[in-house]
């Protein structure tokens, strides 16, 4: 699986060439590698933008404004779900839970969190990304890397940024705190 990320870090998505090389190296059948790469949504079988933006539209985020963000961003960029802007800079995908419900509504770009988003802040994010200087994630590293760079990190090539910044915030621990205090 790191190898699939590795392929993405070079080609930008999982190419057939990449699948063939992995199959050859790991002595697997190409069908098996394809099976894995198409199962996980982090592996893209089509090119994505330099900045891949995922907007959570799962229950919690949706009621907190996720649906509105998703609709407005699609309109703003004039693309559909899973589409890429003509300049190849930004792509948009709707996500079933970014695993950060405590900061709903959540938008992610190249797997970095942008918490408590609004339509405006999300627009600022994609506009910045198109201009080449996206705002820094609200948690984690101090700058947003490109999709290829992020894939390289997932492949196991540490860029030193992954452990930067806060990982677990106050709201994340709220439930734990409450339960420790014995409140229902």
């Amino acid at each position: 699986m790191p190898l699939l990320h590795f392929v993405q870090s070079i080609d930008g998505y999982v190419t057939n060439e990449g699948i063939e090389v992995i199959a050859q190296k790991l002595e697997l059948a190409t069908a098996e590698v394809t099976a894995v790469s198409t199962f996980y949504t982090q592996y893209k079988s089509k090119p994505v933008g330099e900045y891949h933006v995922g907007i959570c539209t799962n229950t919690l985020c949706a009621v907190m404004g996720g649906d509105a963000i998703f609709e407005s961003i699609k309109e703003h960029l004039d693309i559909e779900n899973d589409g890429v802007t003509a300049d190849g800079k930004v792509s948009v995908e709707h996500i079933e839970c970014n695993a950060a419900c405590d900061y709903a509504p959540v938008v992610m770009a190249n797997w970095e969190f942008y918490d408590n988003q609004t339509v405006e802040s999300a627009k600022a994010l994609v506009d910045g990304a198109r201009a080449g200087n996206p705002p820094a994630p609200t948690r984690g590293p101090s700058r947003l890397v490109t999709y290829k760079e992020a894939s390289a990190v997932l492949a196991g090539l540490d860029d030193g940024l992954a452990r930067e910044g806060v990982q677990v915030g106050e709201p994340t621990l709220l439930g734990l705190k409450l339960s420790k205090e014995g409140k229902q």
Partner: protein
Amino acid sequence: MMIKLLSQHVKRRGAAATALPSQLVMVQKRMFHPSQQMSQQFNVYIDGKPIKVDASYTIYQACTEAGVEIPRFCYHERLSVAGNCRMCLVEVEGSPKPIASCATNVRPDLKVITKSEKTRIARGGVMEFLLANHPLDCPICDQGGECDLQDISVVYGYTEGRMMEYKRAVEDKNIGPLIKTSMTRCIHCTRCVRFTEQIAGEFTLGQVGRGKTNEISTYIENMVTNELSGNVVDLCPVGALNNLPYSFTARPWELKSNYTVDVMDSLGSNIDVHTRGSDTMRILPRINDEVNEEWISDKSRHAFDGLRKQRLHIPLLRQPDGSFKELTLQEALSTAAEKLSSVKGDEIQGIIGQFNDVESILAFKDLLNRLNCENIDVRTNAPKYSADFRSQYLMNSRITGIDETDLLILVGCNPRNESPVLNARIRKAVGVNGLKVAVLGSAPNLPYNYTHLGNTPQTLKDLADGTHPFSAELAKAELPMILLSGTALERTDGQAILNLVYKLGETTNVINKKEKWNGINILHSEASRVGALDLGIVPKQSTKTKAKVVYLLGADNFRHEEIPEDAFVIYQGHTGDEGAYYADLIIPGASYLEKQALFVNTDGRPQQTRSAQAPPSPTTAWMRCALASLSWHPIWQSLTSLRAVALRNLR
């Protein structure tokens, strides 16, 4: 550049060093190993009834043992457990949710409830989900009438659907000329994927995507190329994978089933021939654990369509100008009788072809013997191995011996081509029993690990002398087995190879007297051979006299120089194959689907075929009947008496 980067990145796996001498090449293939067996026994309660089962059982197996039927799609007795269809849900006491019985092991005093309201709702729910995306196109689906989904839906499903959404559609795949796909109908049980990987040993099919984009596919338009591929059609519980040549030709309720035996290889797979009227529509496997388990090769499944082409249905006599004249059967028989009695006995030569049954061969032998001809041979292109004892030409360890042996040496043998179903058994033994396989001869592409010992008869000699690097391994084996191909013996040094194999048998455990184990096995390539050898058919005279009349009993694989230019050639057979081109007189016959007859397979098991379809024309009499009127003997008048004699002659 990526290849280079990746090489730095990946550590090679797999090539784990085995303790083999360096000059031996280990060919590695991926295998599946089942989990360990436990042998503790305890009681479980199925719907209140206690039943004693083994600890290795799943709830599903326990229910089957108790005679309770559980609906299922993905579970299959001969494949690994996938547990992905959820159709087999049952209620288990103490568990808040229903449990997939095929994927859950039993535990002591487990109480299973299969007939409760909870189970009914669970099953109905699963049915609803399966049908949410399954097209309701049964009227145009080839599986209609024999579809698990239809049947189970009728019993366990609801009458009306509640899904108002559009159903998804999936693109059909082109996976070869034998399998028709309608992938929209797939319910993702993955039986086809598991079969190709686990039984056939080919890794082309895979499950691609997830959720509603999930589909069974190959990696960009690949083909399924294994020799057993037709079996996925039988395994597919719905109409997603269908038999392509058979498609849209018949409905299952129009078909009549005829239990018979296959003759495409020497294994004698048990088959079920489905006919409509007088036409064979398709061939399916029958279960026989000692022969073909539940599989048949694609050749056995699809070869019958050849019986519709180039059939010989009228007796023909070649004219001086090379054209053929039609004869009546009586004329043909008297011409043959005239020709046969006009020459001396030793000027007649008989050659028996590969699809002949024991009765035909016996009648043929008797006829020629009466004419004082002893020159009859079934071993066309084969060495002169003798027929004095059965053990000289049989698969002595039997087919099931593959499950017992701990070391299998293939000599000049590519079971993948010669007997694909046997090959699947070997693969299974490699995976389940840890059977070691060694290959002597050219290294074939086999779906399991093997050690390649060498390429020449010298290797065999070294092994027999104990000087080969592999000898140590061989000496350790308790019940080693040699599988020697009949085709390997067709070489000019075939006799020498056979002698070396016997020598090897004597110097090692291959012949293990203590265990009553004879590990020398000959895998014949032709269905008729063992039967003929059982009847003692070996040429007993020197073949120096040039034959004036050659009688080919459906023989097509002879050496061309064996038939003298000026001889009168009689060809009795069912298809205008090679032998018919040599013929001066053609007497039509019946094929294996058209006669009730005995065949003896490579491990010496006599099996009877049943006539499934009629021979193509009324003038085509039974081969034996034709022979009978030639040999003028009352015993040939009735099939029963002939069979009785044949059975007495079989050892």
